[in-house]
């Protein structure tokens, strides 16, 4: 192992984000224009997006020693992340001025978190995996508590932090046991050693602890208790980014570890993952039914969606492309839904999120905004021909192909249940408007963000094949060279 094995291009998207974050921090010292700093951040994430697209088109798999690899799996995750980051910055431009958040720290931490997520997607070594998970987690703890004038945000941040750190300890213990069982910390090394140690008790225990740690990070039931409060307490733009980014990154790492490193132990991890999937879907949907606050409802709905994605993970190698497709679709539709909430949110009254009643009459006041929200709700509910439908179709059909028919059936039943609370929002928007309702915010960036998300959700539904071709067979080369 020497310095010649380093292909710097393998971490290009992440490095661009880090550079952008540093520029944002420095600019913040001399430049007090919050929109200007937001535009700098936007330039950074757009550059990352372009770099990722160019790398996806390019041949070969650049690697950084055995620490990280820019294989197609990692690049698709980078694509999801940079799309999510572009949308998150767009919806934040006006919002952070409205709710008075410090621009430099906000955008800087957002970019650092995004780079941590991309590193997690590219990690091929337990150490890179652990550190990038911590970069994104710690940046998100701080972002969740960034509204320091609001005690609810502080409490959400504290809860997130304590449970997140607790989960990290389990994850780390799992890694230590894997190291003990196989004698190495590189994923390729562990994968090579697994067949010879097979069901060594230490290996199984390490895998189980790792699973618990990841279940916390992706908010799977019964390790979800932090999610509703954190998603509700954090500023909406942060919630939008965190619900998509942290989830996608967590699933990326989980899929790489389970499917690529432990394929021979499939029989051992498929049932725990399947049980987690069933609990997560069912509990998330049932709890979402009871919510009168749209932001909190979306928090529970995000738990439910983690459950659908877990169905894809349980399907093993057949489910990988479905999971990637789902993550992209979820990024577009969920950030879009939050963008609409951000437009409706008023700084003083709606610190805890927009109540369902406030959606009343939106179709009459702002028809386009309401139409966009309708697209997002239909897509989240899984109606054809929108992105969310194909996401569910691919993960459920993968589950059927892997012989997990029961999981797929429970998933479909859950989608039907979930339609109720998504459609309730749409129905509320179609009712007559109350007279004294305040005008939702108008801001070009927010409109562009909402528009991109809506168009993306529709296009991904009408032409799912291009993304599907991209995500097919990503696991062919998993550890780079």
């Amino acid at each position, binding site marked *: 192992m020497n310095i010649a094995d380093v292909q710097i291009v393998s971490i290009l998207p992440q490095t661009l984000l880090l550079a952008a974050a540093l520029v944002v921090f420095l600019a913040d010292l001399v430049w007090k224009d919050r929109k200007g700093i937001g535009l700098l951040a936007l330039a950074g994430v757009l550059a990352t997006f372009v770099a990722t697209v160019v790398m996806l088109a390019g041949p070969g798999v650049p690697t950084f020693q055995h620490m990280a690899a820019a294989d197609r799996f990692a690049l698709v995750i980078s694509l999801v992340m940079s799309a999510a980051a572009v949308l998150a910055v767009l919806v934040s431009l006006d919002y952070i001025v409205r709710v008075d958040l410090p621009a430099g720290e906000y955008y800087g931490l957002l970019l650092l978190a995004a780079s941590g997520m991309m590193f997690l997607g590219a990690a091929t070594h337990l*150490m*890179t995996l652990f550190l990038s998970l911590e970069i994104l987690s*710690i940046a998100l703890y*701080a972002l969740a508590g960034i509204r*320091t004038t609001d005690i609810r945000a502080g409490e959400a941040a504290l809860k997130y932090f304590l449970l997140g750190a607790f989960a990290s300890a389990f994850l780390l213990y799992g890694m230590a046991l894997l190291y003990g*069982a196989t*004698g190495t910390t590189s994923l390729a090394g562990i994968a090579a*050693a697994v067949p010879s140690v097979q069901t060594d008790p*230490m290996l199984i*225990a390490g895998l189980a602890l790792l699973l618990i740690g990841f279940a916390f990070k992706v908010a799977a039931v019964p390790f979800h208790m932090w999610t509703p409060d954190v998603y509700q307490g954090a500023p909406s733009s942060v919630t939008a980014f965190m619900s998509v980014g942290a989830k996608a990154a967590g699933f990326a790492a989980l899929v790489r570890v389970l499917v690529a490193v432990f394929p021979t132990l499939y029989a051992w991890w498929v049932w725990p993952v399947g049980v987690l999937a069933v609990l997560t879907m069912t509990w998330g949907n049932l709890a979402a039914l009871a919510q009168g606050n749209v932001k909190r409802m979306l928090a529970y709905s995000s738990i439910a969606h983690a459950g659908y994605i877990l169905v894809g993970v349980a399907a093993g190698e057949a489910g990988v492309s479905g999971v990637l497709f789902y993550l992209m679709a979820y990024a577009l539709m969920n950030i879009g839904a939050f963008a609409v909430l951000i437009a409706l949110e008023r700084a003083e009254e709606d610190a805890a999120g927009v109540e369902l009643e406030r959606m009343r009459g939106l179709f009459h006041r702002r028809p386009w905004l309401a139409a966009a929200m309708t697209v997002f709700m239909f897509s989240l509910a899984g109606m054809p021909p929108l992105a969310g439908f194909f996401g569910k179709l691919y993960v459920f059909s993968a589950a059927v192909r892997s012989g997990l028919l029961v999981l797929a059936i429970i998933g479909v039943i859950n989608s039907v249940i979930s339609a109720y609370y998504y459609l309730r929002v749409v129905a509320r928007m179609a009712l007559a408007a109350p007279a004294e309702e305040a005008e939702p915010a108008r801001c070009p960036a927010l409109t562009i963000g909402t528009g991109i998300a809506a168009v993306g959700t529709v296009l991904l539904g009408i032409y799912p094949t291009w993304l599907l071709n991209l995500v097919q067979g990503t696991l062919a080369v998993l550890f780079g060279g």
Partner: protein
Amino acid sequence: MTATPLETVLFIAFGAVAIAGALSVILARHAVYSALGMLVNFVALAAMYIMLSAEFLGIAQLIVYAGAIVVLFLFALMLIGGRRPAEQGRLTGGLAAAGSALVVVFLAEIAYLVMRLTGTAGAKGTVTPDVIAQLGHIQLLGATLLLEYILPFELASVLLLVGIVGAVMLARARRQSRQE
């Protein structure tokens, strides 16, 4: 790995001290005593690291954990009122019992796994205590860190940047909200 009788005695002694420290963290009524228990635990572990031929990490443990981290905790405690009793009560009996039961099961499982350990788990590397004694622990660790583990090393620096920015942001919040 076989230990000489002296080493065995020391391992057991430091282990007992570490457990005593950890227990006093969770049992002390007052948070300051918890912090001191944590200090005892950290120092005992540092001693064990040095015995396990990880000298650099033993010293780093003393500086980072026993020094910086414990002091930060004590600062925070003093700042938010170290004098008053830290908490009104423990969790309700049922929850605490359920939690403890879970932990006992967990511990039993790990202990069982370790006892079943074949002893030769994993492929052995080449870094024996003799090699460490010959080349020096810091040289070996430094070369490995900066050649083989350069990416995690850089990631750790990014992580510290996140920590610094986040902590400064959270701490200077008051001033910012007063500007309005």
